[in-house]
């Protein structure tokens, strides 16, 4: 059995077991109801885990989504009634859909802002729901609440608590399965990248806004489902069950269970529901114990426990697997050692043209009327003293910075205003001065992320593993492993990037930069932070990389011998302006270039 099916099948088996136990009256109605609450809490925990644990967004409005699901269900039941067994599927569907839509609306501020601001915005939504939406008499019945009868599913009457429990468990199994699938497809990896750094994510070609909205959508859909199931279980729904405190409590419970860990968050939510019922002396203490645990956990491990343990495990594994090997930094990495079928490129055609770009930061000219050109397959240097505007120009080319004036053309198309993830898809990849990898994801995930734009299946297709998405994933995985093998790091494919040395991370970054078979790679000081031994091989690697992937290079570098070895021509940038260009050896002897680097001769 594939591993991703293990937990869902186990949960489904529990559903069957509780159904039988309920039918034979071995399980009391009261017990079944309590366990059902725990299951629903587990589903809600998964919804919050998806948003916070995977995508790194924060929601203080989770109980509002839950309440929405409940009251939509209440509305359907009280207005349409059972309707020949249609009431149940209709109410579930509407709860899911409306939960998804509202969560997207709540998530809108997340397009621009995160962290503190997102917390404030979702807090405000929760407060508005609490005081306004849930105060609408027709929707919530205010103090008296809304009565929801036990539903009918086709010919069956889900009258007993045990049948409802089994019903909810099936949904838990489905959500769990989809959640597992999500984290094995490109959309899940995109979330991990967004959690870490949105700029890095979009340099990999991830459409950040769209993926963030999808995370809110999925989060709201699952929470709406939980709300609907809750309504059927509790039978009388009152607004106080969905107050702000409840949102906070679930957030706390999920963090205590461990953000990012399905088992952790579901177990934590289930236990905090069950234990106070089973051990009455705990009543009232649960809401003291949970936050106390949260404080202790986060003060000691700000990233949460799963993160902490994963880091420890990976560091240990790294050490173990390196035993008997010579120093890894001294290994001769053989990136691009393998001959590849070259992408057929029109020889010596114009690839990138930057025309009169100017960028200002608060009155300061960072880049001043700079123009440059890179022809296909060429290797071009971009040198100049610190603060000359080289990285800013890179940011303009890759779409992280909007120029005040000027245009950028790629293969003849004006891309000046195209978002950065679209440029990645067009074939411009880049590295960063500070390593631009998702440090809390594995090497394999990073290399597969780098192929994000080449895996063009949709989320539904990926979640259901249809339409050849598995085949595409397998291909991308094979390609990733091959590249890792070429840089000599295949043994560490399943470890997190953060446990590697900076030199090794640089190699992974290079591998990522070519994984998507780009037409142009922008390299921002690739030798920075590398051990001298590794840096020595860099020129050779870059030359082979250029040949074997038939990609053009634009290289920012302070280490002039590297530029000389790799590049045919170079541009020199000083105080935002191009002061020289031409063959490297000639250019670096020009007096104005020497002056820019060394200062005015006295």
């Amino acid at each position, binding site marked *: 059995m594939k591993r991703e099916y293990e937990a869902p099948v186990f949960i489904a088996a529990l559903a069957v077991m509780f159904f039988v136990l309920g039918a034979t009256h071995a399980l009391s109605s009261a017990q079944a109801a309590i366990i059902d609450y725990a299951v629903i809490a587990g589903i809600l925990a998964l919804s919050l885990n998806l948003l916070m644990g995977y995508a790194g967004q924060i929601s203080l409005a989770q109980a509002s989504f839950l309440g929405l699901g409940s009251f939509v269900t209440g509305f359907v039941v009280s207005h349409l009634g059972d309707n020949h067994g249609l009431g149940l599927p209709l109410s579930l569907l509407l709860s899911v859909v409306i939960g998804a839509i509202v969560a997207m609306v709540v998530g809108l501020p997340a397009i621009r802002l995160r962290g503190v601001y997102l917390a404030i915005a979702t807090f405000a939504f929760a407060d508005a729901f609490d005081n306004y939406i849930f105060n609408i008499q027709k929707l919530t019945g205010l103090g008296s609440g809304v009565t929801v009868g036990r539903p009918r599913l086709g010919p069956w009457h889900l009258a007993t608590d045990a049948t409802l429990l089994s019903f909810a468990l099936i949904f838990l199994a489905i959500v769990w399965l989809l959640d597992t699938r999500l984290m094995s497809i490109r959309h899940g990896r995109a979330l991990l990248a967004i959690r870490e750094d949105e700029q890095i994510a979009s340099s990999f070609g991830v459409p950040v806004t769209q993926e963030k909205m999808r995370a809110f959508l999925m989060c709201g859909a699952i929470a709406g489902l939980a709300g609907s199931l809750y309504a059927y279980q509790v039978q009388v729904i009152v607004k106080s069950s969905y107050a702000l405190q409840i949102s906070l409590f679930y957030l706390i419970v999920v963090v205590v269970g461990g953000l990012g860990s399905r088992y952790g968050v579901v177990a934590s939510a289930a236990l905090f529901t069950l234990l106070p019922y089973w051990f009455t002396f705990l009543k009232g203490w649960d809401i003291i114990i949970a936050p106390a645990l949260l404080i202790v956990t986060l003060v000691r491990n*700000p990233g949460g426990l799963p993160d902490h343990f994963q880091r420890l495990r990976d560091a240990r594994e790294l050490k173990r697997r390196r035993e008997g090997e010579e120093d890894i930094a001294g290994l001769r990495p053989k990136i691009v050692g393998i001959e590849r079928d070259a992408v057929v490129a029109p020889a010596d055609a114009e690839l990138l043209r930057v025309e009169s770009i100017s960028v200002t930061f608060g009155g300061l000219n960072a880049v001043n009327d700079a123009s440059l050109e890179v022809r296909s397959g060429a290797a071009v240097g971009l040198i100049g003293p610190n603060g000359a505007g080289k990285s800013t120009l890179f940011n303009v080319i890759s779409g992280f910075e909007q120029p005040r004036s000027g245009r950028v053309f790629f293969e003849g198309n004006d891309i000046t205003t195209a978002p950065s993830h679209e440029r990645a898809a067009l074939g411009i990849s880049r590295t960063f001065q500070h390593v631009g990898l998702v440090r809390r994801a594995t090497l394999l995930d990073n290399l597969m992320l780098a192929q994000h734009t080449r895996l063009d299946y949709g989320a539904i297709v990926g979640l259901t593993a249809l339409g050849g998405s598995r085949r595409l994933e397998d291909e991308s995985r094979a390609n990733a492993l091959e590249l890792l093998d070429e840089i000599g790091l295949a043994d560490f494919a399943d470890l997190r990037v953060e446990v590697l040395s900076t030199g090794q991370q640089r190699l992974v970054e290079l591998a990522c930069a070519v994984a998507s078979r780009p037409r142009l790679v922008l390299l921002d000081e690739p030798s920075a932070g590398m051990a001298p031994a590794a840096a020595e091989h860099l020129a050779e690697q870059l030359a082979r990389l250029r040949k074997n992937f038939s990609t053009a290079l634009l290289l920012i570098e302070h280490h002039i011998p590297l530029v000389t070895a790799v590049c045919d021509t170079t541009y020199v940038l000083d105080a935002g302006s191009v002061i020289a260009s031409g063959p490297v050896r000639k250019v670096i002897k020009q007096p104005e270039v020497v002056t820019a680097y060394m200062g005015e001769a006295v």
Partner: protein
Amino acid sequence: MLHAPIQTVVILGLAKGAIFALMALGITLTYRAARVINFAQGEIGTTAAFVAWWLIAKHGQPWVVGALLALAVAGLIGYGMHRFIALPMREAPRTSVMITTLGVAFLLFGIELKLFGPSPETLPTPFSGSSWGIHVGSFVLTPIYITAMLVAGAIAGGLALLLTRTRFGLGVLASAQDPASARLLGIPANLVSAFTWIAAALLGGIAGLLVAPTQGVFFAFQMSGLIFFRGLVASLIGGLDSLPGAVVGAIVVGEIDSFAGFIFNRSAGVPELVLLAIILVVMVVRPAGLLGAEVAA
């Protein structure tokens, strides 16, 4: 349509704004120093109200004694947050610190329920028995509102003097921009952090003590929704890192609250809806608020 003369609405708005300003100043102070929203600040207010109620209403202590001990508890909580959260989490991601303060808010909520129970309680005003008040139209501005305005004004003024006229205060302001420059002024970072968290807790406590008597009853978690949220909006309007901005924001929020409350019925939750709209507009149009520095990209 307004259900009261306009000057009544405006003055009530100012009185509310004064209390929100206390909250907003604490929020802004913490945000400047630690880049964190202290979500526990409102609940520290509720806790202070409970402690004061327990001493004054249940044990017949004089108001001043109850209030001072309540503030001592608030200050202690603030110190605890500095010592056991802010200090060890200096290097932690800011979101983690923020979630930890949510944990503190909830912990206080849980403790309040355990110690004082879920039922609403009444904190008497320090002026009970006096029917004195300033008549504004049909509305009587009771002493508690006047006190709130005076206290808030005095604290805002005192804080402004402390921060701009003393060496220590300048160190606090400087450390928000650059911890190193505060050290150069001879102000240890630890001291700045302790001051910030204790001051924020005390501001929360004072706001709680001033609000509880005006509400008729108060209950666990009330201040987190009622005044902390409004303080948060005020601070956001001001730009999160501007102290004058926080005061201006608080007055804006106080007036909105007052007008929305009089135009629509309070119970309908319209003020919350308006505040939500304001938050969204500020975030979309100008995250730096009215007086804040540019939001770091």
